[in-house]
């Protein structure tokens, strides 16, 4: 049982965090990726699949769509599948992949029509890949991860486990899980959910980062399982299991600032084919809005009319609240003696569709250490009443009187 860390081991924690953060954007090794998929399928009791590598999750999805359209004839599919032997697989993969990709890049984005989509929906009813996907999950989670976790728990003292959890896992979690995996997963889900089911393995990075460190300090794992788990997570960041084929994706280049996805000059998450996502301090922006903010070509009206409050706050931080308020003809309607409760401001230069000037409750957010602007009705002229309206305290017939704001 390991009960405490040496000084040297403790000093290594940031290195391991950085190692896994870096691995999240390190290019996949195609040979290793194909092997990792094959090994995982073997572990699942499935035949080795053909592995087709897309340059991004969207690209992998399009390849899968195209492929499923080609092979919707099951007889043709069986014939094709039977003919594929291991020797041919790689060549076929490469040829297919590069040919399809060039076709896709030049044609499919513009020509992917409703016909293909409707064919896809029919294909989606076939449950084979549903089973594969859930099998993949249960294999990773219940078999590999739990077993590795048990080994870890048996060998690490509880106190040390929780210390490492705080120092290592939480940091990996905040960066790789909260930021990268969740952001990417939700955006991909919104774009791909109707088209295909996919599996994003960034979810596992904080786990494997922890196990990797645990191995360094002397925890013994079942080497085969550990390596299978590690290799799969490193080499297969995104997978669409489909019949005997696994469509996987290259990794993106990722830009961070203070542990948050961030870039003012390019996409913070960018795949080799140009697909990616823009972020400012961890807040996602669509490209046009991101460009307007980062080039400071956005008007006060556009900023104050941003519907999402996190994006609005971030845009205000970028341009500057005072500058924007001045441009919008801001007038203070009410100020509360407790500055944190805020002010009611009216923006005379910004009208809504009924012709009323926009009014905001400008309140201090202790977590952001900055002002947030919450839109209130044009007849609101009292800070406390505005707070009560915002949280709908009238339902309980109570006045705004917080004992804690965080």
């Amino acid at each position, binding site marked *: 049982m390991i009960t405490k860390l040496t000084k040297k081991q403790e000093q290594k924690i940031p290195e391991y965090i950085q190692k896994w953060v870096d691995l999240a954007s390190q290019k996949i090794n195609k040979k290793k990726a194909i092997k990792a998929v094959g090994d995982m399928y073997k572990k699942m009791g499935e035949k080795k699949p053909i592995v087709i590598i897309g340059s991004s999750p969207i690209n992998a999805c399009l390849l899968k769509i195209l492929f499923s359209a080609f092979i919707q004839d099951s007889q043709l599919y069986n014939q094709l599948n039977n003919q594929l032997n291991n020797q041919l697989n790689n060549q076929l993969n490469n040829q297919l992949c590069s040919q399809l990709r060039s076709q896709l890049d030049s044609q499919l984005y513009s020509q992917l029509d409703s016909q293909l989509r409707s064919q896809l929906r029919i294909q989606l009813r076939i449950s084979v890949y549903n089973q594969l996907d859930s099998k993949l999950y249960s294999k990773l989670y219940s078999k590999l991860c739990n077993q590795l976790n048990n080994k870890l728990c048996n060998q690490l003292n509880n106190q040390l486990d929780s210390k490492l959890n705080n120092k290592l896992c939480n940091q990996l979690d*905040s960066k790789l899980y*909260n930021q990268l995996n*969740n*952001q990417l997963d*939700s955006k991909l889900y919104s774009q791909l959910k109707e088209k295909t089911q996919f599996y994003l393995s960034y979810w596992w990075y904080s786990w494997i980062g922890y196990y990797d460190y645990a191995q360094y300090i002397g925890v013994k794992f079942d080497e085969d399982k550990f390596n299978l788990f590690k290799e799969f997570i490193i080499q297969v960041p995104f997978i669409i299991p489909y019949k005997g084929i696994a469509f996987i994706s290259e990794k993106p280049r990722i830009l961070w600032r203070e542990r948050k996805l961030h870039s003012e000059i390019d996409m913070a998450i960018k795949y080799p084919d140009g697909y990616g996502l823009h972020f400012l301090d*961890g*807040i*996602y922006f669509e490209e046009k809005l991101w460009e307007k903010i980062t080039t400071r070509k956005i008007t006060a009206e556009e900023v104050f009319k941003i*519907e*999402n*409050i*996190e*994006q609005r706050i971030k845009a205000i931080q970028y341009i500057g609240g005072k500058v924007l308020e001045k441009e919008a003809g801001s007038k203070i309607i009410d100020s509360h003696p407790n500055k944190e409760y805020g002010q009611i401001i009216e923006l005379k230069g910004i009208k*809504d*569709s*009924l012709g*009323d000037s926009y*009014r905001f409750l400008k309140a201090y*957010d*202790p*977590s*952001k250490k900055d002002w947030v602007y*919450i*839109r*209130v*009705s044009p007849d*609101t002229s009292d800070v406390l009443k505005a707070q009560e*309206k*915002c*949280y*709908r*305290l009238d339902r*309980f017939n*109570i006045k*705004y*009187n*917080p*004992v*804690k*704001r*965080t």
Partner: protein
Amino acid sequence: MTIQKYQGDVSLIKIEKAPKNIVFKKLNKDLVVREGEITNHLHLLTKTKEAEISYANFLDEWYLKIEKGSAVITHPEHKEITLDEGLYFIGKQWEYDEIEKRREVQD
């Protein structure tokens, strides 16, 4: 005095009684009280060991009954808030909209 705590756009109000038609269920695992649309950050309620808690969803807001022990609400950007025994309403923040008159804050 009603105890009011606020974690960003989430309100935690200690109340005397819940509406009659509310049906409570036993809380066995963590409860996602609210999720940021853009950040995906969760306001996550976790019960402490051996706590006895039941909950009810009401139009995307929550009633929470802590009969024994306590619960903690965490969020990556905010300090955690502990809730002791009692009945709580966990609500969200709303903004004015001239068409809908009121819409929940989108974060």
